């Protein structure tokens, strides 16, 4: 099953990925990272289709995408 990993320390909580994901995989927590940003997290990892849209749109290169080989 495809999945994404969000490096929370890179994320600045811009929500671009949240808005862009066609499968609503990503949401936010109330937690903040060291920089004080409320970072994005995969909340419905199971729905991910590995399309990479989120990763491509993420300005801060916080997202990496994995797929079955």
């Amino acid at each position, binding site marked *: 099953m495809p999945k994404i990993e969000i490096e929370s320390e890179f994320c600045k909580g811009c929500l*671009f990925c949240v808005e862009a994901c066609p499968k609503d995989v990503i949401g936010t927590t109330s937690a903040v990272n060291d920089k004080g940003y409320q970072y994005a997290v995969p909340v419905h990892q199971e729905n991910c289709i590995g399309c990479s849209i989120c990763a491509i749109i993420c*300005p801060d290169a916080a997202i990496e995408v994995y797929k079955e080989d």
Partner: protein
Amino acid sequence: MKKVYSRPIGLHRNINGYCPGCLHSAAGKIIMSALEELNLLEKTAMVDGVGCCANNNNYMDLDAIGTPHGRACATASAIKRCSPETIVITYQGDGDLASIGLAETMMAANRGDNITVFFINNANYGMTGGQMAPTTLLDMKTTTTPFGRNPEEHGYPMDMCKVLSTLKGPSYIARVTCTDVPNVRKAKEAVKEALQHQVDGKGFSMVEFVSNCPTNWGLTPLESLKFIKEHMLAEYPLGVYRNL
């Protein structure tokens, strides 16, 4: 499991200081991944303008040099002429490239110096707190146009792609944005094309990124993307302006 999308290898783990949703980050990421794909990371020297782009220095693993405000193209031209094997790129904001550095930009373009310019147009002076830039849209409020930019007093938004396209020196000029996936893809293609022009010794190339400044625009990151699409792109049409 295979990684199908990775962070460009040239980006350090140091976090850059760009604001959330600032497309400076996006431009940097695209440039680094284009350099990676063209196998140019080891050959490249980046000339940073003065502006928010000062952030690049810390997180991009590239030879780099900061240069006086506006003079990036002059510095880059000299580096290229002294070290032709180096891929020389500049990274500049609109204040830097189109206002104080306008003469330097145009003259490097006109000389056809074999460098590649990345131009981040966010319609204001981001780093200094959002003053009017040559690219500020009409009616846009900035800290030095508190009543909005009006053409009688402040003139019109400068279209650098158009201006530079009147010159014979440039071999590649394109305008891109990073508001959505298709545009990000096109942006990367343009960046690669521009770099390829340099590799092929064709002369001056430039990619303008229509960008944002959520902080000084007073918008959320998502709102700022909307503003780009609705307002910026009307004034700054995307496309390839020159490709020799």
